[in-house]
């Protein structure tokens, strides 16, 4: 199954389960969880089901296109089901079946992996899902976001699309993935589409990102976020929080943040995230 077909199959599968199918959020972020459709929608009492692809940027994971599995830019497919349904594990396994993973041929396992996002002040319990020893998804029951209890509980599924596709296609190198499934000259691999991007972006992340400017960006995003929270505009405020988080990740990749400072920076992003969540709850008139 070509990469894009797998993505479309997952979208259709979850659309059939009643999910709102969203398009990627138009900002740089480290994980699909940062998308407001997950972070903010996990708060409050209203039911919500959504699925979307989110490009993720992890500057420290860049390998200049030389590692067969590590990328600084990759895709996550994110599903959020609120409240988490009784048959959520079965629904998830159904989605694997839809993309051609035969549970009578492959060893699928739920291995403890509690999820915590220090920058979002969020945590949940769940597993990483293994398929023949490869982690293909993260499965979490959200307990808190932004320091606030999730009630009802949202179930979150995060599929690492490249890994999953490598598994499904039986390919050892991510750049060899069949991207579009077209025959002959029209066929495009993942490398055709992204290899050069990995090379250039790795060089940017590790060598060229202007750290003075990034420190300045971080500060500005922080100030802007605070200002917007005062204006009771949690949605644009949250975008500044996303921006500060990504800026921090870039600074981290440049190796200019020490271990102790690291904690302080994460704490600052968390404070922003908590502020946004609190303002979001207030704006909606929900009880805490």
């Amino acid at each position, binding site marked *: 199954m070509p990469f894009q077909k797998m993505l479309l199959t997952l979208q259709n599968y979850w659309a059939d389960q009643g999910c709102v199918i969203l398009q990627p959020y138009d900002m740089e972020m480290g994980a699909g969880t940062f998308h407001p459709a997950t972070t903010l929608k996990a708060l409050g009492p209203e039911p919500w089901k959504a699925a979307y692809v989110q490009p993720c940027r992890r500057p420290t994971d860049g390998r200049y296109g030389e590692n067969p599995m590590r990328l600084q830019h990759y895709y996550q497919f994110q599903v959020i089901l609120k409240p*988490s349904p009784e048959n959520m594990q079965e629904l998830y396994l159904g989605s694997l079946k839809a993309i051609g993973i035969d549970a009578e041929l*492959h060893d699928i396992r739920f291995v403890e992996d509690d999820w915590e996002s220090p920058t979002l002040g969020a945590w949940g319990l769940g597993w990483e899902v293994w398929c023949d*020893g490869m982690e293909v998804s993260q499965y979490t029951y959200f307990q808190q976001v932004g320091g606030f209890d999730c009630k009802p509980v949202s179930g979150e599924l995060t599929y690492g699309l490249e890994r999953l596709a490598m598994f499904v296609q039986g390919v050892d190198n991510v750049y060899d993935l069949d991207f579009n499934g077209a025959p002959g000259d029209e066929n495009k691999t993942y490398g055709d589409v992204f290899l050069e991007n990995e090379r250039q972006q790795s060089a940017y992340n590790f060598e060229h990102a202007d750290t003075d400017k990034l420190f300045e960006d971080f500060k500005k995003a922080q100030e802007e976020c605070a200002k917007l929270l005062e204006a009771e505009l949690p949605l644009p405020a949250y975008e500044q929080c996303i921006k500060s988080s990504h800026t921090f990740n870039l600074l981290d990749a440049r190796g200019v943040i020490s271990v102790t400072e690291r904690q302080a920076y994460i704490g600052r992003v968390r404070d922003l995230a908590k502020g946004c969540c609190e303002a979001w709850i207030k704006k909606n008139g929900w009880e805490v």
Partner: protein
Amino acid sequence: MSDLLIELFSEEIPARMQKKASEDLRDMMTAALKEAGLTFEIATAYATPRRLTLTVTGLPEKTADISEERRGPRVDAPEKALEGFMRGAGVTRDQLEEREEKKGTFFFARIEKPGRATTEVVAEALEATVRNFPWPKSQRWGDGNLRWVRPLHSIICLFGSAIVDLEIDGIKAGNTTRGHRFMAPEAFEVSDFADYSAKLLDAKVVLDPAMRMAKIAEAAERLAAERGVDWVEDKGLLAEVAGLVEWPVPLMGSFDPSFMEVPEEVLILTMKKDQKYFVTRDKENGKLAPYFITVSNLEAKDGGAAVATGNGRVIAARLADAKFFWEQDLKGKLEDNLPALKDIVFHIELGRMSDRVARMKALAGFLAEYIDGCDPAEAERAAELAKADLVSGMVYEFPEVQGIMGRYYAKAQGESDAVADAIRDHYAPAGPSDACPSAPVSVAVALAEKIDTLVGFFAIDKRPTGSKDPYALRRAALGILRLITENDIRLPLEHVLGLAARPLKPYLELHAGAGEDAILKHLEETFEQHLLPFFADRLKVQQRDLGVRHDLIDAVYAKGDDDLVRILARVSALSAFLDTDDGANLLAGYKRAANILKIEEKKDERSYDQAADAGLLHDPEEKALHGALATATSDAAAALNAEDFEKAMAALSTLRAPIDAFFDKVTVNADDAAVRENRLALLSEIRSAVNTVADFSLIEG
């Protein structure tokens, strides 16, 4: 008599929690049954990834009836008293009986409490158990408020073959369960434990974790033999893997031998920790073999070929990552990493890693003087490079191999074996059972690392409190004690600690106030009040585990020595001496003398700590004692000087007979005041003679 069967069926329970959870289920339920007065034969609990199961055999159908007679007020008591009695006993007037006793005629009530049905007790107990279950972490799910380790789906609760009436947050107890998630997903009914475990086995679930472990071990052994390699058994991993599968199917996979150029510690870590694989070794040379054993949860329809291939692909990718870091790191030299240590903060109040390394280097060089066969230049070099691998790619990715990688990179840049080994060993010992370094350079750097940690955090008032020890200072102290005592290093510990504190001065203003004097005072207080007592305390804890009496350590420690090796030699000689007749009697004689002195000194409000006057000695026994004391004191002092503690004890043992004779024949509180004073002085001489060896007042018994 009937048997009880309980199954709590949930989504996958973390492997590491299963054993304790099954025990908790058993203990909480049996405690509640006992509390209700129910007896039983055997209670056994099991766990799989998706279920906790308990079976209790031989339970009665109900708790025993209770019949009790209660005496009420006299028949002529006021009506109010009678009413109160009837209310309390739950009886009416016509159920009362009048009976004449010595003190008059009283009302009596007979109270009959019928036994409760066991099912009722079980239902209550199970609900309480589920609601109060001590999971290390639990969660809510969906719309509900119930907490469990992961969503709880169904409950079996059968007493005999009848379903116990019970509902917890919408989950009604029944008699159905499910088998293996993929191989037998259909629900089925069970009638009792025998039926349950047989049907589970048919449904591809091995209920008993011990059986799953045995199955895995047996198959792993066989697979390895078929391939001609040795399976490396690992009890912890075996238990963990058995907690990840309901139907274990071990399979053998392989990886490209070219990965073997990466240090095997990294390969093992990746396979074991990240992938939960068992590793194998070459039968001939014991080296890691390029085969691993993974345990799948499935009898796949292709015999496991796809699963093995898939796992092989995953490990190849992971090892490729490790190989990438290995090759990247080897492109530079270990010492090229040193400038980057400036960018790592060790602790915000104790400077950067580069500062710490500079302190360790100076200290290791100094310590080398005290360690036989330790070249100070090598100790300094090893300390200088000890932390350099922290900024290598491999350690960034796999923090567990810190030190281990440093050794490889040090050898690659041509450092001596002693230096390279010291870099690897300097974190050790990590605990009481961890191997303790013995190579001289390793000992120097390991000591320097721990002393810097301990002195640093004490100096900034970050001492361990209660169960909180975030900087693992107890472990550091234990490490220091083990390094010194197990290697017989004669070290003036106080002096060394003082030396370690010197470079910390610039960091201490916040805690000490400004100025050299304030800082010195702060350090002195820290040492006197905290650090040295902490060491004494740790020494006692460590030695207690080796069977040494803490009071003997106190008795010797009170002499103010800081050479741990000497202290322990003294303790050991003292302990052996006290086990002899002479020793035990001398201790008794000492206690008697000390007690009399204490009483008389208090009464007279003065001290008798003085030499006895030979001219005032009357009785032969006191003259003999006086002579013996002079000899013993000088002999003991000479022996102590020569560090011959057995001999010092032997010198003291000569006092036993004269002391016994003295107490037998001589009256201390003589009528003549001068004679009395002199005899008390003689007792004080006993006290001080004995105290040259150890402070006997601190010895118990």
